[in-house]
C-alpha cells in the first residue's frame, strides 16, 4: 500500500506577497490611488531634497563665527555657539552644574517608581513629591546652605521651559482631581465653587491670564512690592490647566459604573477612601490619553511666557537671533527649537502609551 505524500505547498505567487504586492494593494489599487501616490511622491521629491541639502549637505557645522558659514546652507555654528544659552538661559555658566544636578536627581529619584517590585512605592512616591521640590528650589535658586543665589530672572532656556512645565503638571493634576470631585459633590456650596472656578478659567485664554498677572497685578500692589515674575506665571499656568484636567478627570469619573460606587459603600468605605481606593484608580487609568494630551498642550503653552518677558526656550532662541553678530539666523533657531519641543512631546506620548498598556486590566475584551 502506497502512502500518498503531499507535495510541499508552493509559495504564493509573487504578485500576492512581498513589496510589490504590498505596493499594488496599498498604493496603486485604483487609478485615483495611483494618481495620489504619484502626486505625493512628487511633493516629497520637491520638498525633501532641498531640505536635506539645506540642513546637511550645504550646512556648516564647524567654526565659531558667522563668517565661517557658507551662504545657502544652514549655519549650525549659531546653535553650537549659543547652545549653553538655549539650555540654561542666563544662568551663570559656573553654576550650571546645579541645573544639571537638579535634572539628574529628578531622573534618579523617579527610577524606583518604575520598578515593579519596589516595596512601599506609594510612600516613596509621596515622599519624593514633597522632598524633591524643596531640593530643586534650593539647588536652582540657592541663597541658602552657602549656595550663591540665582534670581529667577536669570533662569531661562530649556531649564525654564521644563520648570514651568513640570511645576504646572505637578500642581495642576492634584488640583484638577479635587476640582473634578468637587464638581460631582453633593454639597451645593462646593459644587458651585468648583463649577465657577472651572468655567472661569476655561473661559479665558492663557495669554490673558499671563498678561493680567504681569501688567495689571503690579498696579494694584503697593509701590515697590513686586511678585516674582516666574511665580506669577506658574500660578497662572497651574490654575488655568487645572480647569482642563478637572474636566478630563470628570469624564473618567462618569465612565465608572454605578455598581462600583455602591460596592465601595457596601464595603463600608467612606467617601475619601472609596474615591482613593476604588473610583479614582479606575477613572484616572481611563483618562490617561486625555491627561497626557493636556500635559502636551501645557508643555507647548509654556512658550506663551514670551508675552511677559520670561526667557523660555523659544524666547532664548529669539533673543539670540537679535544679537547683531547672528542676525538672520532665525530659521536655524526655530528648526532647532521645533526639534526639542517635538522630542519632549513625543516622549510624553510614548510614555503614556506604555503606561496604558501596563495598567491595562482588559475591561474592554
Amino acid at each position, binding site marked *: 500500500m502506497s502512502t500518498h505524500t503531499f507535495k510541499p505547498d508552493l509559495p504564493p505567487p509573487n504578485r500576492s506577497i512581498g513589496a510589490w504586492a504590498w505596493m499594488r494593494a496599498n498604493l496603486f489599487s485604483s487609478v485615483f490611488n495611483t494618481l495620489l501616490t504619484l502626486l505625493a511622491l512628487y511633493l516629497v521629491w520637491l520638498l525633501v531634497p532641498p531640505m536635506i541639502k539645506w540642513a546637511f549637505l550645504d550646512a556648516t557645522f564647524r567654526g565659531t563665527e558667522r563668517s565661517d558659514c557658507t*551662504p545657502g546652507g544652514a549655519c549650525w555654528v549659531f546653535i553650537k*555657539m*549659543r547652545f549653553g*544659552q538655549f539650555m540654561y*538661559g*542666563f*544662568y*551663570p*555658566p559656573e553654576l550650571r552644574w546645579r541645573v544639571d544636578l537638579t535634572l539628574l536627581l529628578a531622573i534618579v529619584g523617579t527610577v524606583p517608581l518604575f520598578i515593579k517590585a519596589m516595596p512601599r512605592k506609594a510612600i516613596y512616591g509621596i515622599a519624593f513629591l514633597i522632598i524633591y521640590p524643596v531640593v530643586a528650589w534650593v539647588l536652582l535658586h540657592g541663597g541658602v546652605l552657602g549656595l550663591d543665589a540665582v*534670581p529667577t*530672572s*536669570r533662569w531661562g532656556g530649556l531649564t525654564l521651559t521644563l520648570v514651568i512645565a513640570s511645576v504646572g503638571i505637578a500642581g495642576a493634576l492634584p488640583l484638577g482631581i479635587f476640582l473634578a470631585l468637587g464638581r460631582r459633590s453633593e454639597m451645593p456650596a462646593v459644587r458651585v465653587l468648583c463649577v465657577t472656578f472651572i468655567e472661569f478659567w476655561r473661559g479665558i485664554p492663557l495669554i490673558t491670564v499671563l*498678561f493680567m498677572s*504681569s*501688567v*495689571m497685578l*503690579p*498696579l*494694584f*500692589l*503697593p*509701590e*515697590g512690592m*513686586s511678585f516674582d515674575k516666574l511665580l506669577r506665571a506658574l500660578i497662572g499656568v497651574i490654575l488655568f490647566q487645572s480647569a482642563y484636567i478637572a474636566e478630563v478627570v470628570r469624564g473618567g469619573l462618569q465612565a465608572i459604573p454605578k455598581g462600583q460606587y455602591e460596592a465601595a459603600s457596601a464595603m463600608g468605605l467612606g467617601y475619601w477612601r472609596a474615591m482613593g481606593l476604588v473610583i479614582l484608580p479606575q477613572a484616572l487609568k481611563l483618562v490617561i490619553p486625555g491627561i497626557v494630551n493636556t500635559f502636551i498642550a501645557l508643555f507647548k503653552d509654556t512658550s506663551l511666557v*514670551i*508675552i*511677559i*518677558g520670561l*526667557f523660555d526656550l523659544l*524666547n532664548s532662541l*529669539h*533673543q*539670540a*537671533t*537679535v*544679537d*547683531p*553678530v547672528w*542676525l*538672520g539666523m*532665525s530659521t536655524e533657531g526655530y528648526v532647532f527649537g521645533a526639534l526639542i519641543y517635538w522630542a519632549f512631546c513625543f516622549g510624553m506620548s510614548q510614555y503614556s502609551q506604555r503606561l496604558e498598556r501596563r495598567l491595562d486590566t482588559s475591561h474592554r475584551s
Partner: protein
Amino acid sequence: MKMVKSTLAILTTAAVLGVSGFAHAGATLDAVKKKGFVQCGISDGLPGFSYAEAGGKYAGLDVDVCRAVAAAVFGDAEKVRYSPLTAKERFTALQSGEIDILSRNTTWTSSRDAGMGMNFIGVTYYDGVGFLVNKKLGVSSAKELDGATICIQAGTTTELNVSDYFRSNGMKYTPITYDRSDESAKSLEAGRCDVLTSDQSQLYAQRIKLANPDDYVVLPEVISKEPLGPAVRRGDDEWFAIAKWSLFAMIGAEELGVTSANVEEMAKNAKNPDVARLLGAEGNFGNDLKLPKDWAVKIVKQVGNYGEVFERNVGMGSALKIKRGLNAQWNNGGILYAPPVR
C-alpha cells in the same frame, strides 16, 4: 513709536483707582543705594539697543545708559539688573516701581511725557521711519515710490506714518503687514514687496538678515520724528536729575574730547575749564546731584562717551554700521547738545 492704546487705557484705570502712587523726592536714590543695584527696564531683544551676548551679558545702546547711571551712583557700571520688558509691559513696570529707569527705545511723545506718570531724561537716539529698497528698483528717493508694495511691521505707528506720508505726497501704495521682523525681511528678499519700512535704526538690522545685504539700500528720507529716550518715574526730581545728567555727561564728554582712554589723564591735568568741571577737578558739581565728585569720570571710564557707545553698539564698530547723521554732536552736523556742567 510702538504706542499701545491699551496701555493708555490701563494707566487711566490705574490713575482713577489711585494706585499709581508717586514716589517721594529722593526715595528712588535711597532705595537704589540700599538694594545695591539699579533695576533697568530694557527691551526683549532689539539689535544694537539691547540684546544678550553669547555669555548672557546684556549689551546695547539702551543698556549702556543704565550702566552709566550705575557708574554715576555706585562708581561701578556692573551694578545693574535688567528686566526685559515687552512693549506692552514697559510703562506699568516703571509706574509700579518694578524698575528704576526705563531704557527701552521708547519714543518721547507728549502723551507719554505728560499723561503717563513718567519723565523722559533726554534723547539717546534720534530715529525715524525710513525705507529699505532693493537697488534693482533704481529708486534714490522715497518720493519715487508711487505704486510700490510696502512691507510694514504691525503694531507700531509705522503704519500711520507711512499712510500719512503717502497721502500728503499724493502717492499710492499697497501695504503688506507683518507681525515679526524676520517675516518682513524674508518677504522683501522673496520679492513679495518692493520696500520694507520700519524705524531707520531697525532697517539696518533687517538688512543684515538678507542673503545679499549689498543689494539693498536704506533711502535717505526719514518720514517721522522718533526721538528715543530713557524715562524715569515722575515725582522724584533727584533721581530724574541723576539719570538726566548721566546721559548729559556722556554726550558732553564726547564734545569735549574726553574718552574712556584719556579720561583719567584729563581728570588729573585738565587745561580746559569745562573738562575740569565735568570731571570734578574744579569745583564739586557732583554734590548738587548727590553723587561723588568723580561721577563723570566713572561713567566715561567704564561706559565711554556717547560717541564710543554709539560706535560700539550701532555704529561702524558694530555689525549694524549706522552713520551718525542726526546723532552727531551739534558742532559736527548733528543735533546732540548737552548743557554744560558748571
